[in-house]
């Protein structure tokens, strides 16, 4: 024991107190000794000093050990309290222990005193440690309980998310099956119409005049058109549902490669293609590829009536998004109808001027929107158009 033990001694005999004090002096290394011979001083010391252990006589003139014990136990239920008494009697001793005394030492056997004090202090120390351990354990338990609650909550949320995802997957599958069978069922009659019109024109052409044959031709053309529309709708629907797999995309490589393959169909045309620095994008490789295919094809298509086709592509990072643009010097469009550009089957040019279904930009819009971005365009009739889209950097 390396800190000073504060000993409070309740004893009215000076001789006994001196004897016991000297025993303590020789037996205990660091201590402070407080002597009280009456109730008032006893209570006072107890109050003002941080007493570690009480030694008490059994009976004093105006006070007695049991009272002192009661007082001490009321305030400090765990403080070591040793009776040091001459005449105690067995019953008194037993009573004292039952009332909570830690030990008792007889005055004519004081060799037991120091060991008793040391033992009492040790047990007290252990008791304190035990109580602290209990408190720590309780705290730890509460902590674990709280964490458990947290984990249960997280689990619940994950389960919900999972169920949501499952629902979506099922819905997608159903939609896919529906789209497939719809397009399927629509194709068969188309094939029949086209087929029998063809037979008609082969077998019965002699019975038909020029107009009749032209009518048949128109029917064939229309069935072909309808076939394309069905295909386009299917593709559009698929793009709306496909899982987005985001990776880093080297836009410059993608655009350069696409331009090469798309412009192969335009040999003989004077095409100038300028790509300035293109930042990488975060997106689904297949879908973003489709976006560029549509935009570049459009740029090439709508500028084919110009002597020289000039297409500029560029991009930059702005805050949390990457913006790309493609500018052509082609037919352009009337800004009045700009909001129709990205609609499904919407066209701003006559079919006889520029063929097309009107699904390309709708696809672009769908894909970019699914990426969390936006697309828009600027143009002037006869003076080209610029298409913009952005994707989050994420």
């Amino acid at each position: 024991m390396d800190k000073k033990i504060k000993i409070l001694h309740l004893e009215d005999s000076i001789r006994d107190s001196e004897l016991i004090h000297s025993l303590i002096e020789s037996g205990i290394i660091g201590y402070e000794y407080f002597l009280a011979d009456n109730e008032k001083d006893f209570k006072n010391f107890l109050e003002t000093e941080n007493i570690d252990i009480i030694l008490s006589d059994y009976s004093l003139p105006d006070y007695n050990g049991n009272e002192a014990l009661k007082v001490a136990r009321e305030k400090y239920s765990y403080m070591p309290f040793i009776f040091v008494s001459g005449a105690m009697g067995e019953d008194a001793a037993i009573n004292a222990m039952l009332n909570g005394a830690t030990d008792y030492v007889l005055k004519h056997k004081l060799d037991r005193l120091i060991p008793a004090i040391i033992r009492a202090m040790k047990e007290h120390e252990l008791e304190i440690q035990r109580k602290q351990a209990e408190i720590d354990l309780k705290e730890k338990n509460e902590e674990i309980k709280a964490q458990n609650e947290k984990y249960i909550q997280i689990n619940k949320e994950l389960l919900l998310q999972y169920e949501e995802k499952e629902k979506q997957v099922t819905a997608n599958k159903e939609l896919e099956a529906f789209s497939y069978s719809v397009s399927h069922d629509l194709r068969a009659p188309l094939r029949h119409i086209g087929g029998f019109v063809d037979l008609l024109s082969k077998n019965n052409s002699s019975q038909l005049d020029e107009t009749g044959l032209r009518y048949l031709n128109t029917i064939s053309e229309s069935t072909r058109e309808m076939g394309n529309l069905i295909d386009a709708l299917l593709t559009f629907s698929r793009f709306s549902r496909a899982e987005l797999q985001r990776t880093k995309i080297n836009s410059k490589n993608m655009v350069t490669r696409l331009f090469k393959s798309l412009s192969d169909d335009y040999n003989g045309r004077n095409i100038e293609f300028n790509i300035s620095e293109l930042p990488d994008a975060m997106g689904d490789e297949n879908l973003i590829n489709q976006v560029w295919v549509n935009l570049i094809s459009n740029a090439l298509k709508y500028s084919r009536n110009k002597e020289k086709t000039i297409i500029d592509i560029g991009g930059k990072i702005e805050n949390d998004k990457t913006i790309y643009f493609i500018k052509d010097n082609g037919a352009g469009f009337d800004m009045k109808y700009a909001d129709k550009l990205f609609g499904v089957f919407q066209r701003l040019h006559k079919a006889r001027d520029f063929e097309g279904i009107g699904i390309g930009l709708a696809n672009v819009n769908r894909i970019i929107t699914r990426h969390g971005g936006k697309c828009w365009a600027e143009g002037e009739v006869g003076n080209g158009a610029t298409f913009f889209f952005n994707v989050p950097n994420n």
Partner: protein
Amino acid sequence: MNTEVKRILIVDDSPKDVELTIAALAEKNLANEVIVAEDGEEALDYLYKRGKFANEIGNPAVILLDIKMPKMDGIEVLKHIRSDSNFKLIPVIMVTSSREERDLVESYKLGANSYVVKPVDIVQFIDAIKVLGQYWAVINQPPPEHAQ
């Protein structure tokens, strides 16, 4: 060398598609020995020479098999054909409107010789049938009738 007449078995539940197919084959003069089965059961009836085909003889040189049919679909029919040693070797071409990868894979796994999707464009369809007919019923040597 087998110089006998090359029969073409068409298995398809759509009479319109059948008529268009026959018209296409006719352009290559292949329409004379065309047999039509309107579903899987009839196809097997023909192969096993029972039911309405009880009086027929000989194996077809090639089978044009649709997939989407009622009762027994084309995949089922293909399975049957390939599991019988009498018919195992007959060339089977899936001529079907199904573009589904699942059907494609199953067909090839079960031993189809070819898989053609009926195009919407009738010119393409006719061309395909003509080419197929020309190849399988004229140029190609069908397996001998009773090989194992």
